[in-house]
């Protein structure tokens, strides 16, 4: 597999008067062309921050970004601002969570999409418009030659997200970062949008990073999953293996927080206790230990004193986990919760 995107030891730190916020702290992953990586985690786990770094959106802020982001062999962290700008939208594009606020309310949808096209292509307005109408048709907007002149508020939520996807794909980028693309949408529309993304991915052979906290989306879309906690990867591997045989208590917790349609109605969801840690002063040892039900099963106070490394898990090559537990089988969460 050719990994056209390689992220190595990515760190995004924000210095604040109270100390350094380590929003992303030593993140590494790979993505092959045409494949999808799902990044999962709670709010504030550093999912979005790490992905914004790929687009260079932290440039010009006080964020300190280090590590390596190799896209087709170019380190995106060392190129100039102008070189980065020329890649934005052309090689890497982004789809945002809330398409209503992500689109400018004072410009027509067509104007905003055409703008994305004309930055990277030297064409006149008319040619850009033709291309925009084409794209709108491709993403399934009815009567695209008319709707192209509508303002974002005249679109429904699902149509707005379709328009955002058209905007992201109009320059045929090799990588699309979708930051919770379905969070603001109805469930039925969510499925349509995901289908659309998959269809276009096959058509354009686009690599997709999908950021979400919805494991259903991951199961549907992703080839690989990266589970993030407190700015670090805690488990990483092929989706199928990871969702069926997770080996890290936080992943277990995420899975058992999802309602199961086939389960008994009386069955209770098992939420992860506590709240995500402060990134300003994360807990010593394993960042997850204050919320972990299994730290007693680890000898001594290893979980409290020592940060576990990302080590190979038992589910084949490419599976990594960050946990001190020696027995990686999933205990029955239900029983644990009851005891």
């Amino acid at each position, binding site marked *: 597999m050719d990994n056209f995107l390689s992220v190595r030891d990515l760190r995004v730190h924000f210095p604040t008067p109270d100390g350094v916020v380590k929003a992303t702290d030593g993140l590494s992953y790979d993505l092959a062309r045409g494949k999808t990586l799902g990044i999962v985690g709670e709010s504030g786990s550093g999912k979005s921050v790490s992905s914004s770094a790929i*687009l260079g*959106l932290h440039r010009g802020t006080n964020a300190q970004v280090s590590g390596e982001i190799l896209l087709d062999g170019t380190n995106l962290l060392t190129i100039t601002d102008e070189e980065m*700008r*020329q*890649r*934005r*939208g*052309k090689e890497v*594009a*982004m789809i*945002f969570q*809330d398409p209503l*606020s*992500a*689109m*400018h*309310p*004072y*410009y*027509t949808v067509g104007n*905003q999409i055409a*703008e*994305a096209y004309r*930055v*990277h292509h030297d064409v006149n307005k008319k040619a850009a418009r033709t291309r925009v109408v084409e794209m709108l048709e491709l993403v399934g907007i009815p009567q695209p030659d008319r709707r192209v002149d509508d*303002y974002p*508020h005249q679109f429904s939520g699902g149509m707005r997200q379709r328009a955002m996807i058209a*905007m992201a794909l109009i320059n045929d980028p090799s990588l699309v970062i979708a930051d919770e693309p379905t969070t603001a949408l109805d469930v039925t529309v969510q499925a349509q949008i995901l289908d659309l993304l998959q269809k276009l991915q096959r058509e354009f052979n686009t690599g997709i990073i999908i950021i979400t906290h919805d494991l259903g989306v991951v199961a549907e879309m992703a080839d690989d999953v990266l589970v993030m906690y407190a700015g670090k990867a805690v488990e990483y591997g092929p989706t199928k293996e990871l969702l069926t045989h997770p080996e890290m208590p936080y992943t277990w917790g995420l899975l058992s927080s999802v309602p199961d349609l086939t389960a008994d109605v009386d069955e209770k969801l098992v939420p992860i206790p506590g709240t995500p840690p402060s990134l300003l002063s994360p807990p010593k040892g394993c960042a997850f230990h204050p919320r972990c039900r299994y730290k007693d099963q680890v000898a001594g106070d290893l979980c409290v004193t020592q940060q576990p490394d990302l080590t190979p898990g038992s589910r084949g090559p490419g599976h990594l986990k960050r946990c001190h537990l020696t027995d990686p089988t999933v205990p029955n969460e239900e029983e644990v919760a009851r005891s």
Partner: protein
Amino acid sequence: MWAYIVRRLFIGVALLLALTLVTFVLFFASPVDPARYACGKNCSEQQRDQARAALGYDKPVYEQWGLFMKGVVAGRDFPADEELRAAAPEVVTHCAAPCLGYSHLNSSTVNDLVKEAAPVSISLALVALVMWLVGGVLFGILAAVFKGSFIDRGIVGLTLVAYAFPTFFIAVFFLKYFAVKWELWPYPTYVSLADGGLASWLGNLIVPAFTLALVFMAGYVRMTRAFMLESMTEDYIRTAKAKGLKQRKVLFKHGLRAALTPLVTMTGLDFATLLGGAIITESVFAYPGLGLLTVQASDAWDLPTVIGVVVLAGSFVILMNIIVDISYAFIDPRVRLG
């Protein structure tokens, strides 16, 4: 849209009616006898009563208001007293609709007074508007773009200075140093566009208009800066950056467009207020505009002039409000007037 405009105009007229009534009531609620002012110092009891009747001040307030409204709608003859008009037809002045009244003090209809004074105030307001908009928005953007730098701090500091000094001080300062002591600029006196041409009109307006614009400019710098900083944190700015747009385009096409919209309301209302006369600036520079007219009329308890200027200034504000609201339908695509 038209239904909306008609409805707004109706409300505007009702507001103006209420405005005139309140002005009448307030005027007569004071213990001062306007007839005594009109009659002068050595004035007998009888002369004073005569003056009162001639000016119509002897009638009840609501009747005077009714007569005023009749004048606005159909025109009036002055003096107000019918017997007096019959006795001395040679002094009768006809004031055609919309008649704002007759100023005994100035021996002239209020319409003529206003016609003479309004161009002065409008000229002053217009030149000041251009100055404070250009300066305010320009420096506001600069401060926002270089937020936190010495440029930003310098600009914000200067706006504080402009805020802190009262207009009359700045006016006197400019007159004393720029016009008199250092002779950098000829002493400004109002020259109308018709009399002096564009150069003379504008040249004479620059110093007083700048005085007037300074405090507004300070406010607009602050507002533009704040709106700009706010709009630059919006999600659509991130989208614009993610598209690969140049920083200049992100700032001016996406950031500024949203930041300028709330300024339209402020600009409309501030401009409308100034059309009704810049009292302090006109007084210090002795520009015979509506502001100076108001000061002189209130000093002499010249009711008709006061009412006339109040109605005019009120109409400016009400009309500009309607214009601003309508303009939003064109500025913001989300607004539909219904």
